[in-house]
């Protein structure tokens, strides 16, 4: 028995319709037409019977032995693995954050080290306060201890009249180091005048001044 596609047009139409009628997916009119055709066409009727048998055979359960329970168990195990892998990424992210922070600290440490090295090597302009010892090289420097009751206005007025300026002090005992504001002023004369002034307890030249 050989099927050829140049069969009668109705048989070709019946051939097209068979799978979908068997599936019950054909329109009602198509199914109705096919049934009418099968009733008068032995060849198509035989073919439809074979198609029906084919569909029944295709619908038989698989004969390949597979246990659904063990398959499901394997799938669940695999999902558990997926879950644990899903949880893992935050740990990996944390690890990266830690490494980034460590790198930042290292860079900062290197920067601080370089800066410290530079500061240690650059001592050309040390910071100095009035309480630090008087510079040794100031010519005509005089150490002066004013009376604690002396007013600031009187102190400033006295220094100004003598052409002196405070270069350091007061130190722990209230002594100031003063020096001529101009090179032309003679420190020895200034010393005598300081000693004679009211409100000055002590006026002595700095020892190392020649």
């Amino acid at each position, binding site marked *: 028995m*050989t099927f050829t596609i140049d069969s009668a047009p109705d048989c070709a139409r019946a051939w097209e319709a068979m799978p979908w009628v068997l599936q019950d*997916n054909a329109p009602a009119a198509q199914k109705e037409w096919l049934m*009418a055709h099968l*009733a008068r066409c032995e060849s198509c009727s035989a073919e439809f*019977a*074979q198609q029906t*048998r084919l569909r029944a055979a295709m*619908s*038989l359960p698989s004969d390949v032995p597979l246990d659904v329970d063990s398959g*499901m168990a394997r799938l669940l195990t695999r999902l558990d693995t997926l879950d644990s892998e899903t949880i893992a990424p935050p740990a990996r992210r944390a690890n990266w954050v830690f490494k980034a922070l460590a790198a930042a600290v290292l860079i900062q440490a290197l920067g601080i080290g370089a800066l410290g090295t530079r500061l240690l090597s650059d001592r050309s302009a040390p910071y100095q306060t009035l309480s630090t010892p008087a510079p040794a090289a100031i010519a005509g420097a005089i150490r002066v201890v004013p009376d604690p009751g002396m007013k600031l206005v009187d102190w400033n007025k006295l220094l100004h009249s003598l052409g002196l300026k405070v270069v350091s002090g007061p130190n722990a005992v209230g002594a100031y180091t003063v020096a001529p504001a101009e090179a032309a002023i003679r420190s020895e004369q200034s010393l005598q005048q300081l000693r004679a002034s009211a409100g000055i307890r002590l006026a002595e030249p700095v020892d190392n001044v020649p």
Partner: protein
Amino acid sequence: MSQQHSPTMKEAAASSDAADRALLQRVAGGDRTALEILYRSYHGTLCRFLSRLTRRPDIIEEVINDCFWIAWQKAGGFHGDSRVSTWIMGIAYRCGLKALRQHGSGPVEDHTLMGDRGPSHDPEEDREMRDWLRKGLDLLSSDQRIVIELVYGNGHSLDEVAAIMQRPVGTVKARLFHARVKLRNLLPALGGEAAARKERVP
């Protein structure tokens, strides 16, 4: 002869798809129970479908596992453009082809398993029908077998088969046509006529 169109199968399919969609939505939310229900309801269908590609149980189980592994991860991406069954069969088909490539062979044609499976609980008529079908499917290419399975075994339309196999509808239609011609010309000689005669006896 009854000329009335019965909507029973269509309604059942629609109802089944609605239930599948609800399950898939739950799967997208991480519901393992819903996944298990889907797995169990599709296991037999997938097993039979994949047995048209290979006879090796280990590969079939691996493919079903891969299929639901992907379904678990991609359920949220299902937009309802097709039936859930079409979506799942499409995943299984691609996983099946991939597994066959990985195992270094085309579809396995070893039918030695056929005679070894469950003869004790298989009714004689079913066994005869299986044998007849096996001989017939042997005549087809794997692509033709898949199309026959999807249309006759699973009840998919041409459009759905095209979506599952990711081929043009015209290609699927041609495969179905040629497969049917082969089966029509050769199945009767393989014992179908005797069976058909038996069926026609009141």
